[in-house]
């Protein structure tokens, strides 16, 4: 069982059974998708928001919208904490029983409610304040994802094998926007220039002993000579006892600021000028990594059994990797596994995108399942591939993303690419995928700030002020040090959004007299699980990060950062309590007095 091919087969069987024998049944018997029913895209076609779109095109669009760094980082982190067995079980069972249901149902509810977004439906069906709570969730979700990712990326950029590809990404992103929208160059040419150029720079920098990496090594060394003992200190309780006091180096700080400059461009420039072309290049890099890595993982079993065999432990125990409980942290399998892997199994963000964008382009009700559910099942494969990468990494010790890069390097080695080179490519691909996400995060954060606080104080409507405030908050989170906890809290906020979306779906199903079980059980499970995970993470931050650094000279920023994260955990918990109470009341209300009558099962298919 502990080889790449076996896991690929198990995952493929899971997808086949889940899609054909569960998802299709729900679509047919409960939702009763009807090809003769006019969808909002057909009723309100305006050529802008409501556009009937071919099923395959929309499937590609929706998949591209949801597939990025989330499934990679989650699967890699969970594999390292609990082993690959619990991670793959949750990935498969999560997507079969919950993930597709959340994505698909959000689209269904929007399609059946005139293309209204999930928050508008929640406002109407549950309570007016649900919309505000959703906005709050979105802001903290973004802050946490920015904190977790920025820490990772600054660390990886500090590696001399990476920076050139990212510089190329920034420059070619600007060039791509100019070529497409100003010079009206053919998309194929733009793709060849921007994606080809970025890949070329990634390859030039991939060799750790090469001249380009040597230049970056010298540059980092010169920076660090300014303050050999670092700028400030943080405590990382997940490291070995004698290595927990980590100095924040000047070069780390430099690359963190460089990352913020990159993201600033993405946040304040018009979307077509920078963020969109950068995201486009990022998608190609993701796709190339996914396809080549997936093929390599599949072929490795036949041609390179040494690469295909797992080196990672199958199961570390219910309390997780020993380094965590040695530090005094709690990492119980339940609930923490279920928030560590969010995307790839179930994600609330997908539901939000689906209800705002994709649902308004559904041409035929029978496209809802292949687009919403199908894209989620496909995204799940990205999580499985990431898990395979970390499970087969040659060096079981080391940072999670290092192991991911090594795993990808191993898969590329199947095609004859030297392992060291392949690992460099894996590193750079990882950064490109994540950095395209962060720039968008800051962009949406400033919009959320503007929407939430703009009416109280007009300064929040200023795009520069909103972006800088978001970056400052992120900076404090990053300097708090322990990104795993921030990642888990991000997962909890994401999964709470999934629970909220499933709750809206459950209430809608009850209100329209349909059987709500397929959405209600995952909603309750995710709600209880994520509430518990929020509390556990708050405890971990308090016991292993905050209290141990309180009063220590040089650790002041880390103390503020951990305090901020604990406060976010508490706010999320309280917000979730309000949602739970309102949701229960709404469910009771609509069970007693449904909104409308629906035809008997089967009648709609006549």
């Amino acid at each position, binding site marked *: 069982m502990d080889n790449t091919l076996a896991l690929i087969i198990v995952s493929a069987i899971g997808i086949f059974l889940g899609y054909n024998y569960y998802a299709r049944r729900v679509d047919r018997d409960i939702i009763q998708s009807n090809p003769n029913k006019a969808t909002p895209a057909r009723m*309100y076609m*305006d*050529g*802008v*928001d409501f*556009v009937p*779109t*071919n099923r*395959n*095109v*929309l*499937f*590609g*669009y*929706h*998949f*591209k*919208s*949801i*597939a*990025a*760094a*989330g499934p990679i980082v989650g699967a890699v982190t969970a594999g390292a904490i609990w082993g690959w067995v619990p991670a793959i079980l949750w990935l498969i069972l999560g997507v079969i029983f919950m993930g597709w249901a959340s994505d698909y149902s959000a689209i269904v509810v929007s399609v059946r409610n005139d293309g*209204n*977004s*999930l*928050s*508008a439906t929640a406002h109407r069906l549950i309570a007016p304040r649900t919309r505000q709570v959703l*906005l709050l969730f*979105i802001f903290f979700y973004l802050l946490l*994802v920015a904190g977790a990712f920025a820490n990772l990326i600054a660390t990886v950029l500090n590696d001399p094998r990476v920076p050139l590809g990212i510089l190329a990404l920034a420059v070619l992103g600007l060039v791509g926007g100019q070529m*497409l*929208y100003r010079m009206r160059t053919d*998309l194929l040419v733009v*793709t060849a220039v921007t994606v080809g150029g970025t890949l070329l720079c990634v390859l030039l920098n991939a060799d750790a002993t090469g001249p380009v990496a040597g230049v970056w090594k010298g540059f980092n060394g010169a920076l660090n000579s300014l303050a050999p003992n670092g700028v400030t200190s943080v405590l990382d309780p997940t490291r070995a006892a004698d290595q927990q006091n980590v100095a924040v180096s000047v070069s780390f700080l430099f690359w963190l600021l460089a990352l913020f400059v990159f993201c600033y461009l993405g946040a304040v420039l018009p*979307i*077509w000028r920078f*963020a*969109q072309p950068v*995201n*486009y290049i*990022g*998608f*190609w890099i993701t*796709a190339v990594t996914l396809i080549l890595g997936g093929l390599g993982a599949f072929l490795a079993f036949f041609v390179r059994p040494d690469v295909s065999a797992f080196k990672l432990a199958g199961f570390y125990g219910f309390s997780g990797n020993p380094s965590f409980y040695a530090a005094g942290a709690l990492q119980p399998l339940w609930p923490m596994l279920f928030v560590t892997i969010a995307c790839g199994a179930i994600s609330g*963000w997908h539901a*939000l*995108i689906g209800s*705002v*964008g994709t649902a308004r382009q559904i041409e035929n009700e029978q496209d809802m399942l292949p687009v919403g559910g199908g894209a989620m099942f496909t995204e799940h494969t990205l999580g499985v591939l990431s898990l395979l990468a970390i499970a087969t990494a040659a060096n079981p010790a080391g940072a999670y993303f290092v192991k991911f890069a090594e795993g990808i390097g191993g898969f590329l080695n199947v095609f004859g690419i030297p392992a060291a080179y392949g690992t460099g490519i894996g590193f750079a691909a990882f950064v490109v995928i994540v950095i*395209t*996400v962060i720039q*968008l*995060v800051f*962009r*949406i954060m400033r*919009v*959320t700030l503007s*929407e*939430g606080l703009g009416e109280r104080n007009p300064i929040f409507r200023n795009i520069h002020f909103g972006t800088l405030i978001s970056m400052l908050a992120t900076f404090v989170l990053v300097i708090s040090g322990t990104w795993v906890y921030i990642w888990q809290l991000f997962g909890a906020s994401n999964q709470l959004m999934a629970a909220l979306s499933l709750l809206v779906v459950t209430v809608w199903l009850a209100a329209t007299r349909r059987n709500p079980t397929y959405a209600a059980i995952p909603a309750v499970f995710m709600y209880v699980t994520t509430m518990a995970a929020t509390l556990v993470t708050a405890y971990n931050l308090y016991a292993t990060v905050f209290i141990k650094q309180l009063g220590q000279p040089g650790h002041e920023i880390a103390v503020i950062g951990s305090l901020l994260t604990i406060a976010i955990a508490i706010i999320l918990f309280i917000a979730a309590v309000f949602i739970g109470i309102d949701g229960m009341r709404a469910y009771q209300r609509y069970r007693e007095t449904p909104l409308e009558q629906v035809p008997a099962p089967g009648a709609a298919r006549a």
Partner: protein
Amino acid sequence: MALARFAAFAEALRQFLYGATGYEFERQAARLRGDLENLFLFMIVGDTIGVPILPPYYALRLVPYVVETLPYWKRRVLRERHPLEHEEFDLHGI
């Protein structure tokens, strides 16, 4: 038969790839055009949705050309919106 099935698969793959790559730019272009049209129609017939804009006299000559699009335009600008809806293109890939 096999060839036809292969052709259908190749076409589906082409459509999928277009959806994952170029379609976003097509939508962005449509949205830019939609925003400009919004402004234009505001100037011509803004008063029909309660915006107190006094159109210039010559705008009246354009009214016959925009009458057909008015119901769609009204629905588009008066529709309830999600706070992040206009940033939908930014939401991708998180």
